[in-house]
């Protein structure tokens, strides 16, 4: 038994490594090809631009990864993002002297409340995540429209300091990138080196045995969705500050991009596995695609199909690799 477990963990590490190397290779190959077609791709300015554009996506992917690790999915984050962005934009509009830090805090808290609500519904009543978040997505989206009265908050109504969140820099790095890096470091520590972090994986890989071994599944589920909500709230403020406009339909459908980044990054949709380094690469790949396709004169109308195709190829490759590894395992075990 012990041998089997050991063996399994050994191989899953191998798969993860292989996946990440493959993904990294693909990213490099793509970058080189794009660079050959258009030399302005690899300039510092463009790379900075690209990473800034990917920052929000990668912040959200961290939360989504935790959710998917617990076998869930969160379709409501686009709506949570819009709601918190809208409320903080309206607050800033009403009080132009507000410190931007307060706006960020407010947005995060709103997102956290939204997430906690979803978490409670999922953990306490056993509503499947896809249904609960689908419903809440409608609710939050509706609330956003109602609060704003269908109007936009546009750039001239926001204070300079609020718009400055996305354009300012800390230690020479753009604030968005800085926040993303901080979040990555914090969550890397959280999921790999704290008890609660490991419990998230335990709940994801086998909920029943997690329960038997004394983990409070409900608490973990609540926690995961609350984190997701908080990150979505934070991303909402950053989004509104970056695009200098808050609309009712902000980030509609963005949840799919986030899920795609996770899936590309090797997060297993069936739960239990997923690594921070993987989703960095996943988000980066999507960011590069968004940035590079216009640079090499691909019509914007092709981008969607190309993105979908790459996601499909990535998940299928993942499945095939896993299959061959499993088959090798069987052969190895027989001997």
């Amino acid at each position, binding site marked *: 038994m012990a041998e089997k477990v050991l063996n399994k963990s050994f191989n899953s590490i191998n798969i993860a490594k292989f996946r990440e190397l493959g993904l990294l290779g693909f990213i490099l190959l793509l970058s080189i090809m794009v660079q050959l077609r258009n030399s302005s791709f690899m300039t510092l300015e463009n790379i900075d631009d690209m990473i800034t554009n990917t920052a929000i996506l990668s912040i959200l992917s961290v939360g989504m990864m935790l959710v998917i690790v617990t076998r869930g999915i969160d379709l409501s984050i686009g709506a949570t993002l819009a709601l918190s962005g809208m409320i903080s934009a309206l607050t800033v509009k009403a009080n132009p002297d507000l410190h931007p830090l307060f706006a960020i805090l407010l947005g995060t808290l709103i997102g956290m409340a939204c997430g906690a609500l979803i978490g409670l519904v999922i953990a306490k009543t056993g509503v499947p995540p896809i249904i609960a978040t689908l419903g809440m997505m409608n609710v939050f989206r509706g609330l956003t429209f109602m609060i704003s009265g269908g109007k936009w908050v546009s750039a001239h109504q926001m204070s300079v300091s609020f718009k400055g969140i996305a354009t300012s820099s800390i230690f020479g790095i753009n604030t968005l990138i800085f926040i993303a890096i901080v979040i990555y470091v914090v969550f890397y520590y959280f999921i790999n080196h704290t008890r609660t972090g490991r419990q998230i994986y335990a709940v994801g890989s086998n909920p029943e045995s997690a329960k038997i071994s004394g983990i409070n599944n409900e608490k973990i589920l609540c926690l995961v969705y609350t984190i997701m909500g908080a990150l979505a709230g934070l991303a909402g403020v950053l989004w509104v500050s970056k695009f200098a406009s808050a609309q*009712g339909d902000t980030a509609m459908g963005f949840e799919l991009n986030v899920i795609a980044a996770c899936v590309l990054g090797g997060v297993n949709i*069936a739960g239990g596995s997923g690594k921070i380094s993987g989703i960095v690469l996943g988000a980066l790949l999507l960011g590069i695609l968004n940035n590079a396709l216009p640079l090499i004169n691909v019509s914007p109308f092709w981008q969607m199909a190309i993105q979908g195709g790459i*996601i*499909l190829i990535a998940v299928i490759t993942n499945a095939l690799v896993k299959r061959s590894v499993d088959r090798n395992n069987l052969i190895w075990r027989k001997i």
Partner: protein
Amino acid sequence: MKEKNIIAKKEFNLKSFFFQWEWMLVLLFVVINIINTFLSPYYLDPKKLLDATMTFLDKAFIVLPMVFVIILADIDISVASTVALSAVVMAVSYNLGVPMALAIIICLLVGTLCGFLNGLLIVKFKELSAVIVTLSTMIIYRGIAYIILEDQASGKFPAWYKFLGWGYVGGIPFILIVFAVFAVVFGLLLHKTTFGRRVYAMGNNITASRFSGIQVDKIKVIVFTLTGFMSAVTALFLTSRMGSTRPNVASGYELDVIAMVVLGGISSTGGKGKLTGAIISIFLIGFLRYGLGLKNVPAQALLIIIGLLLIFAVMIPNLKFNFKKWGKVQKTS
């Protein structure tokens, strides 16, 4: 462990429970109609109510096969994109000189092909959940629609094509008649044929179904292909109503459809539910939308109501279920 419990429960109270659920839906439906009647004096007019069905029945065609998909404990979120793709292909091929009748057949073929592809991918790659497969095909199908038509609209259909979405047969909207026919066919398929029983069996326990000789893969592919086909039917009626089509047509339909199915008492964990529940909930949501629309309730409030309905529809039976299980544990311990 959990599955065992569900199956053991099934013999005891499932029948009576779902009997209740459908009645609850009917009750809710009646309540909504009464409220609507009180809110607006224009509501209770048979002619207007019949006309109102024309506005929401287009997506109802997808609800029927989606019931099968969700009974299989799968999900298909690519339906809206399939609608868009088949509508766009139809419009473009008609405008390239293909006769309309042939264009309609092409539309149905494209939808069927999309569904078949979904089914094939799901069956061939069992490691991938239906969510992820249909998520990526959703992006791909919509993407292809954008490649074909870019940001243009395409239309100028012949006059008779309008009949699908706007026509009447004996005072009854044509779309309602077609829907009724499809509903009967799907109802018979689900509740009166071995195919339907096998779908239920697979939803309850796919491994046991495979061992008892059901061709699991074949049935799954058929169900997803049916979903694609019905999405194309929706595309036909939707395009006819709108007069032209765009690549971003039908966005958000997948959510509406899934909401209707789940509200109809079809459990997203599979194996449970009846087609009648879903059909009642189509009309429930449709009339709710129509009635509140008469009162100028903003569409956003409707979003909230439908979202909450969706969650509560799933939550209430779960609460009951947990409560019973809890009671049983108390008794045995």
